[in-house]
């Protein structure tokens, strides 16, 4: 029962934050200098056309009414009309978001496995060579922005070594799978097009890896610290004193308390992946949502901008929520002690 209350409270909090976010972005977008109606119509359109467009976009009404109307539209699934792509923003979102989500998914898998493995190695051989190597890598990984990794990887592995493609998400001449779910990985599997699946994956590896570097570094450090600290603790000595096999202790009794503090940070890392995806997508020309959003921002495509921020906010909030729930599930102290706050 306590668990359920916790989840409900977290969801309520996320919704509240999203509302605040939407208000913020919406207000900002309507305050900017420049005339959105004029921009939509084009510099040579006559004044009455601009007036019509202004009415259409509800720009003549007071701002809170505009917001209200906009919210109504959002719930209907209508995010407005993009000036750049000249079609419904909702359509654009469904077109581009899956590619970004797939990228983030692969990055998440890479960094979770990577940080656990590296953290465990560093913890097991603490203060010796493997540990020092991992820690050195961790410092560099944390300090290097994702797009720097992206450029370096692109240069070395794509251009110089030619092991991976340098741009885009698919190679010329590969038949693309039909759009069933919108997620190319799944679509290619569903339609049995394994060649397209492998090709897509091959294109995904470098960007995902670049995105995963920073989180791997950060979380490996935390896991390593957890393992080193917990190894000397009494509850491990107790487990050893009762003759529990080493493997059991390492994989179960040492693992769980060491990883739990990392899970919170992993959650934040996943959220950070979203923002960093922007930059990496630009470097690799990946047809994802971030690229779309950046274009919208550079072109002052109002609807697209607001929608982008909202979508990203939602994905961020959902990701955080899932992570919080997982953490609460893993660490019983959190869900029982929430009240004490």
């Amino acid at each position: 029962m306590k668990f359920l209350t916790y989840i409900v409270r977290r969801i309520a909090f996320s919704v509240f934050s999203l509302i605040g976010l939407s208000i913020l972005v919406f207000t900002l977008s309507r305050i900017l200098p420049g005339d959105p109606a004029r921009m939509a119509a084009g510099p040579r359109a006559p004044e009455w056309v601009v007036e019509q467009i202004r009415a259409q976009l509800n720009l003549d009404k007071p701002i809170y009414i505009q917001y209200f109307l906009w919210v109504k539209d959002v719930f209907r699934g209508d995010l407005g009309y993009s000036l750049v792509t000249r079609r419904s923003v909702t359509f654009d979102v469904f077109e581009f978001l899956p590619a970004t989500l797939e990228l983030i998914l692969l990055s998440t898998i890479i960094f979770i496995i990577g940080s656990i493995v590296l953290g465990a190695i560093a913890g097991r051989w603490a203060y010796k060579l493997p540990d020092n190597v991992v820690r050195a890598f961790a410092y560099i990984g944390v300090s290097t922005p994702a797009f720097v990794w992206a450029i370096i990887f692109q240069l070395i592995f794509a251009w110089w070594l030619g092991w991976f493609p340098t741009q885009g998400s698919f190679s010329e001449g590969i038949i693309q799978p039909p759009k069933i779910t919108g997620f190319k990985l799944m679509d290619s599997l569903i339609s049995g097009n394994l060649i397209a699946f492998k090709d897509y994956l091959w294109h995904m590896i470098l960007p995902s890896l670049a995105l995963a570097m920073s989180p791997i570094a950060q979380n490996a450090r935390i896991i390593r610290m957890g393992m080193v600290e917990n190894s000397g603790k009494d509850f491990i000595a107790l487990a050893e004193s009762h003759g529990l096999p080493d493997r059991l202790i390492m994989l179960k009794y040492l693992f769980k308390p060491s990883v739990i503090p990392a899970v919170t940070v992993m959650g934040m890392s996943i959220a950070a992946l979203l923002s960093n995806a922007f930059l990496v997508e630009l470097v690799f020309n990946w047809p994802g949502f971030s690229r779309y959003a950046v274009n919208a921002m550079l072109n002052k495509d109002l609807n697209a901008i607001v929608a982008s921020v909202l979508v990203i906010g939602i994905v961020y909030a959902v990701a955080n929520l899932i992570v919080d729930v997982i953490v609460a599930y893993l660490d019983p102290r959190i869900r029982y002690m929430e009240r004490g706050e």
Partner: protein
Amino acid sequence: MPPLLKVNDLYVSFRTYKGILKVLDGVNLHINEGERIGLIGESGCGKTTTMKAILRILAPNAVNVKGRIIYKGSKDIMNMSRKELMMLRRNSISMIFQDPTAALNPVFKIGEQMMDIIKYSKVYEGRRMTKKELKDESLRLLKEVKLPDPERVFDSYPFQLSGGMRQRVVIAMALASAHELLIADEPTTNLDVTIQDQILKLINEVVEKRKLSVILISHALGAVKNMTNRTYVMYAGNIIEMADSHKLFDNPLHPYTQGLIESVPKLTGGGIGKGIKGRIPDYLNPPSGCRFAPRCDFVESTCRKRKPPWIEVDRNHYVACWLYAKR
């Protein structure tokens, strides 16, 4: 009949970033089957380290571990193979830890931890137990340590239990894998005074019932006097005195022991003792010679130069002190 356990010249040091702490400086003690011995000394003198060395569960930064720990007159624990060591830990010797809060893994339920311990203590009996059998056995042990609602405890996390309950759980766990020797490392020090008595009584009961040998470490000197046959006194990594318990407490010989026993306030009056001046030595640079010399009221020049020998002063009453070497 050889002693159940005999520790011979045990040396243990720890590596810290400040340097090497030379904690155990040649510890010698033994316990016979069916015996209960006490081990007293102030915090930090190496009692827990000695016990952990017996089970070979020292912290990862332990170095320079030397000496022999002979089990049942034949096997040296320090040289045991992995398999033999596991058998020892699972079936023969077990330990009750000082701080029950730290001794229980905070993110696992009690039941989970207990079942694993039981599983690995009985698996060598040749059969594997089903989950139900493991749970039943766990509940039986929890009942044995007088926990009022074993089912609920089984399903709880450590932080949901009180200190006294946690210690009972640790004792229950120890019972799962102790069939010959039970090491009780300050089982009551971290508990409320009202609970301490109960826990000691409980330990007494289970030990009687299962005919276990016991090493009792405690600051509750009265309990040690009453519950043990023989008592060792330890200071700064050395055993400095040993005698039958009543004799030791009634007639302490080593200056340190005298100060220790004197500091306990007595109901019969006489006020509080004057304590012992000074502090335990710095293990980074321990004093050569007798480690107690800097604090001793009776110190002589030999004390600072050479470690005192182990001298039998009376029947089964030994001291490590130059004061008694003249005879």
